[in-house]
């Protein structure tokens, strides 16, 4: 049963990455592309956290009286990395959406094939 869980969590995060990539590669709407990018980010974050998970582990926070509980704690490093990655991803998403707004201002459309004044 636990094996299924393992496949399930990894499979779901990889599926998220693939779905996001599909959206980025095939969709024509600019906002859909940005949505795809944020879905990819979500998948990668879940993947990283899953890597750091420890069965029956506790969160990496020491409470009074349990200063020696380090052996049972989940890996804190991927959590720190994901923390950084989430904030960076949000910044990039915001810049992308501001570019979308500006493209819309000029072209009055969100369709990629109508904006194509440069060669894609």
């Amino acid at each position: 049963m636990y094996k299924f869980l393992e496949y399930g969590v990894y499979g779901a995060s990889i599926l998220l990455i693939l779905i996001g990539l599909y959206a980025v590669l095939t969709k024509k709407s600019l906002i859909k592309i940005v949505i795809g990018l944020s879905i990819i980010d979500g998948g990668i974050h879940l993947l990283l956290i899953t890597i750091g998970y420890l069965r029956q582990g506790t969160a990496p926070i020491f409470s009074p009286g349990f200063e020696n509980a380090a052996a049972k704690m989940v890996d804190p490093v991927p959590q720190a990395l994901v923390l950084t990655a989430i904030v960076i991803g949000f910044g990039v998403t915001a810049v992308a959406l501001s570019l979308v707004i500006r493209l819309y201002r000029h072209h009055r459309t969100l369709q990629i094939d109508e904006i194509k004044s440069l060669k894609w």
Partner: protein
Amino acid sequence: MRKFLVILILAVLGFYLFEAFSGLGLGFPRFEHGVKDYYLDKTVSELHVANTVTSIVVSFRGFDTLGEVTVLFLAVSALGSVLYKRRHDVGSRSILFASSGIVRSGSKLLFPAIILLGVYIFIHGHLTPGGGFQGGAIIATGFLLMLLAYENFRVSHHVLSYVESLAGIIFVVIGLLGFIDGGTFLQNFLPSGILNELFSGGVIGIIYVMVGFKVAAELTGLIYSVLHEKD
């Protein structure tokens, strides 16, 4: 046609990724000499910080955090410069939806509580889950609530810019003080206190509070400038 090609490529990619990760196993200790044991050890014995994630984010990998707040700072600046219009015809802002009286008074009630929660979270970043990013983002959601509920709720751009710059300057200056004092950037130069007390962890608490202010100001400014974008 193009879709099938993409699906084919993605299937191959997914197969290899799944192969790579399903062999890992879920929840077993994997590496003997990873860095995490050292972190878990030192955070108690040397830094006296209860929350290991905080000690990693601020001390062990503090340089990443400095880079990260810079990324947010650049994102806000980029947003401003991308959406910049020469003619200042951005009068009223676009309203997402008209809010009812219940929403208005509810927001007014909730706003102080949200700000308080955010401040609590970033002040206790080294003791409980949360910290500067989380607290800052929560404060920004408080401002967002007010912006959505009240059409004429104004946040001064100058104040946001001051808070943002000052918090960033204090972060770097603390780092440079550590450089002067101990020889390495961001080094702790304050007494590290006792584990699980509010004043513990040396500079970690101060830096995380500064990160909190900076993130709150940046995210609020970001939301504010997008909301005021009227087509």
